[in-house]
Structure formats: structure tokens, C-alpha cells
């Protein structure tokens, strides 16, 4: 479960590395590398949102992409209407959270079963996908900005310094902001999960009945986690729109929703680092397969999913930790054996 002090030292080290990279890396690599990394970082933030909701709270949400998309679209529509990014940033985080609060209320207080919750959240994604896709006509607009249907909304202005619309983020700035946000989200989640609140949330995944029999209102805990997860997904959506200067309805697709789940499965349920790692590796693999055309990325993704479910159900990080523990125990045994031998001799 915990490797002693690793619990505090590990995350702090990760955070420091992240911040160091944010400031140092742009000096060592080309801009296009930063741009590629930014995309992976944004997906890692999205992965963390599902890591919280599913990996730790046990809520199998198939619609995390819906909150990602709502955040992205809300930010884009607000920013292009207002000409400034500060208030739209808040809207892009708040709107998915409000939506999650309403949806979550019905899901958790209605005591909807796990499978039905998965189906309902999947449908939510589907609904948004089809809805936005169908809004191609010029009559579909928020303020002066057309929703654009399947074409999406291009020309998204970069995030600017609050109060200074002219001071916009370039590629380097976007990379740095995204990485700093990732570090903050990672540390924030780590602190949340170590808190009294977080430990109750974790207990819900292990045995919700027992948690309620102890007097905790599991519905409220799940709702709060669901809303926080939606907010984080919304942040990722905003950064995604900023990265590509574009947002389109594919962010609501089932394929995308499924990918997020695969990242967590591969990286490890109940992990934060593993979740981010899973996102990075799968994305990188996706890009590699896409460019080298060895195999259809979706087939490979599906195969990975099947292999992991059957052979490595807890994901990579837990397996890796088990292996490290095994090695540590073997060393202790060997030492123990040696001392027994010495004792015998004496």
C-alpha cells in the first residue's frame, strides 16, 4: 500500500521535477517538441480527473470526455465573445462542475447501480456528441460565435495575462502553463486523497456498504468527488482548446471516452502517477502507430485493453510496486538467513 516515507517524498519529488522541467526544458528542445508534450500533458490532466473519480472513488464514469468537452466549448465560446480569457477560464471550469453536480445528484442520490451509471454517463457523452455535431448551421451560435457542428470552432485565441488581452501565451507559455497546472492538480489530488475526506472516498471504493454502516453518507462523498473530477476535466478541456486553437465535437466521442478509461487501466487503478504515465504512453503509442502505419491504432488500443484486463487488471504501477516489494523482501530474507547461520555457528 504505502512504501513508508515514499508517500510524502515521492509526490514532492515529482512536483519539483515537473516544475523544474517547466522552466528548464524550453531552453533545450525545439518548439515542436514542446507542442507535442503539451498535448500529452493536457491528456495527463484529463487522466488524473478519471483517476480520482474511478481509480480512487470507484465510479466508472464513461462520460469524463463530456466534462472535458463542456469545459473546452464553454471556454472557447466565452473567450471568443468576450475577447479576454480570464472570466472564460472560470466559466470553463464552473460549467462542467455545475453539470456534474446536477447529473451526479440524480446518479448518486437516486442510488443508481454501477452498471447503469456507466451506461448513463456513456449516453451523456453520446448526446453531447450528436447534439454538437448537428449544430452546423450558421443559426447555431452563442453570442457572435457559431458552434460550428462537425467542423468545430477554429481560431481560438490563446490565453492572455489577466487584464491584458494583448499579452497572450505563445507555444512555450502554453507548455509551461499546462505543466504547472498538471503539477498543481497532481499535488492537490495527492493532498485531497491523504486527507480525512479522501480516505473515506477510498473506503467507498473498497466497500461502500461498510462505509455507510459506519455512518458516512457515501452519496455526498461520491457527488463531491464527481464534481471535482468534472472540474479537472474541464481544465483539461480548456487547455486542449488552447493548445490546438480549436475545439470540435470529437472531444465528446465514445472512442475518446474509452481511451481515457484505457489510460487508467494501463497505468493503474488507485494511482496518480500511473494514470499520468498510462496517458503518456498510450498517447505516444497512438502517435507512433499513426505516423508509421504499422497497424491501426484502434486495433492495437483494443488489444492492449484486452491484455490488461485479463493479465494485468490492476495496471502497471501496482504491478511494478509489487515487484519492488518482492525484491525488497528477498533481500531481507537473505540477510535473515545469514544471521541465523551465524547464530548457529556461534
Amino acid at each position, binding site marked *: 500500500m504505502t512504501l513508508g516515507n515514499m508517500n510524502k517524498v515521492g509526490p514532492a519529488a515529482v512536483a519539483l521535477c515537473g516544475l523544474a522541467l517547466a522552466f528548464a526544458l524550453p531552453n533545450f528542445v525545439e518548439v515542436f517538441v514542446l507542442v507535442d508534450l503539451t498535448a500529452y500533458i493536457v491528456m495527463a490532466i484529463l487522466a488524473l480527473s478519471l483517476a480520482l473519480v474511478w481509480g480512487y472513488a470507484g465510479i466508472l464514469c464513461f462520460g469524463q470526455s463530456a466534462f472535458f468537452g463542456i469545459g473546452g466549448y464553454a471556454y472557447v465560446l466565452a473567450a471568443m465573445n468576450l475577447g479576454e480569457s480570464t472570466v472564460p477560464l472560470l466559466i470553463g471550469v464552473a460549467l462542467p462542475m455545475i453539470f456534474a453536480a446536477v447529473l451526479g445528484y440524480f446518479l448518486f442520490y437516486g442510488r443508481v447501480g454501477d452498471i447503469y451509471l456507466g451506461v448513463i454517463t456513456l449516453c451523456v457523452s453520446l448526446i453531447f456528441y450528436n447534439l454538437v455535431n448537428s449544430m452546423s448551421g450558421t443559426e447555431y451560435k452563442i453570442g457572435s460565435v457559431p458552434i460550428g457542428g462537425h467542423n468545430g470552432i477554429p481560431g481560438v485565441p490563446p490565453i492572455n495575462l489577466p487584464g491584458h488581452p494583448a499579452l497572450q501565451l505563445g507555444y512555450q507559455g502554453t507548455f509551461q502553463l499546462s505543466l504547472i497546472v498538471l503539477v498543481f492538480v497532481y499535488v492537490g489530488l495527492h493532498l485531497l486523497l491523504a486527507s480525512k475526506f479522501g480516505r473515506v472516498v477510498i473506503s467507498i471504493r473498497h466497500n461502500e*456498504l461498510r462505509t455507510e*454502516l459506519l455512518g*458516512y453518507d457515501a452519496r455526498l462523498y461520491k457527488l463531491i468527488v464527481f464534481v471535482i473530477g468534472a472540474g479537472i476535466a474541464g481544465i483539461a478541456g480548456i487547455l486542449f482548446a488552447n493548445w490546438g486553437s480549436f475545439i470540435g465535437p470529437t472531444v465528446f466521442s465514445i472512442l475518446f471516452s474509452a481511451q481515457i478509461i484505457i489510460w487508467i487501466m494501463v497505468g493503474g487503478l488507485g494511482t496518480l502517477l500511473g494514470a499520468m504515465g498510462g496517458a503518456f504512453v498510450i498517447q505516444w503509442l497512438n502517435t507512433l502507430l499513426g505516423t508509421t502505419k504499422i497497424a491501426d491504432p484502434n486495433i492495437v488500443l483494443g488489444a492492449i485493453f484486452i491484455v490488461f484486463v485479463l493479465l494485468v487488471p490492476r495496471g502497471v504501477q501496482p504491478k511494478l510496486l509489487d515487484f519492488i516489494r518482492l525484491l525488497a523482501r528477498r533481500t531481507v530474507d537473505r540477510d535473515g538467513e545469514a544471521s541465523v547461520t551465524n547464530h548457529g555457528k556461534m
Partner: protein
Amino acid sequence: MRRRFGGVAAIDGVDFTLAEGELRCIIGPNGAGKSTFFKMLSGQLRPSAGRILFRGEDVTGAERFRIARRGIAIKTQVPNVYDGLPVGENIRLSAARKQAPAAARQIVEEVLVRTGMTSHARRLVGELAHGQRQWVELGMLIASDPVLMLLDEPTAGLSKNEVARMAELVRDMRAGRSVIVVEHDMAFVQMIGGSVTVFHQGRILVEDSMENIRRNVQVRDVYLGKRSYAGA
């Protein structure tokens, strides 16, 4: 109270009263409705008919966490513990609901000693033997400082020595609390004392002292399967 599952009346007209501070043992053959009865008391099931009053207040159909907050704690027939978490954390979660972190940690230490689980504090509950898991669950109940304790087969999987230890613990815990124990182990029932209620086919057959129950022909027949309630 009544509780139906489709066409089956698991509980078919049970009138049960427990005085504050009383210890009662519920016995009866399998399928008599004992666990179903407990599930209704702890809020896991809603009665199909009838009411449950706790200290004068109607708690029928209340959310299970609200019933737990009133001080009703249950050790379920199949242990409901956190297999994936360490023993210490299991107990801490129970204590932490009402206590500040420092006080909770203190309670965890005390409970670990009382249940004999100190050396296992860091072990994952899922790795323990069934009997040890029973102790963990009991520890969680103790840590929550309940008003009413419902113990569903607390001695299942325990050795003779452990049964004696469990009886001692139950007698200790009785002070200032009400306890209902569902059991099959008659020796244990004798050890802890208290009057006995016999369940059969979803109804109460007889309520009496253990002495009299042991001599009761009806009860013996019910256990040996010679009698069905309808056959009077």
C-alpha cells in the same frame, strides 16, 4: 414487521422489543429470518410492513448511514470489512467519523489491543484468516462507540479459545450498551448470558431464558426439522 421477497415472507410478523441496556440472543435454524431481521434494523432492508422504533423514534426505512449515526452498529454475517486496506486503517475509519484525528488514533491503539490485532495493524485485512477478519470487524464496532450493537454470528470461524475471548469482549462491551447477538454456537450463548429469542420461519417461536429454551421441546423439534410452525 414483515418482509417479503417476491412470494417468500422472510419475516412474517415479528414483534420484537429490546430494553435499553439489555443483551438478547437470537437463535434459530438457517432461513429463519435472523439475518433479514438484522438487515432491517440496520437499514439495509426496508420492512414490507411494520415499524422500527429506536429510543421512541421511528427509523423505519431510514437511510443506513442515518441509522448508523444514531448509534446502531452491525457486524454482518459475512464480514463487511475493507479487505484492501490495513487493519489499522479499517479501525481508524470507524473511529474517525466522530473523533478528531488524535483521539481517533488513540482509540485505534486501544481497540487493537482489546482485539489482539496489534501485531497485524499494518497487514491488509484481505490477507487475514476468517476468524481474524471477524475480530477486525468487531474492532470497527467497538471503535464507533455504539449504543446498540448487532452481532451476526460473531464466533463463526473462531477457535474454542477465541470464542471464550469473544464472549469476554461482548460481556465487557455490554456496559452501557444494548446488544443483540445472532448465534448458532450455544456454548457461546451460555457464556454471554442474556435471554433468548427463537426465530423460526420468519416468526418468533418463543422468548425465554437459556435454561428454559434448552428444555423446550418445540425448539428442539424446530432445530431437528420435525416441526413447521403452521403445523402447530
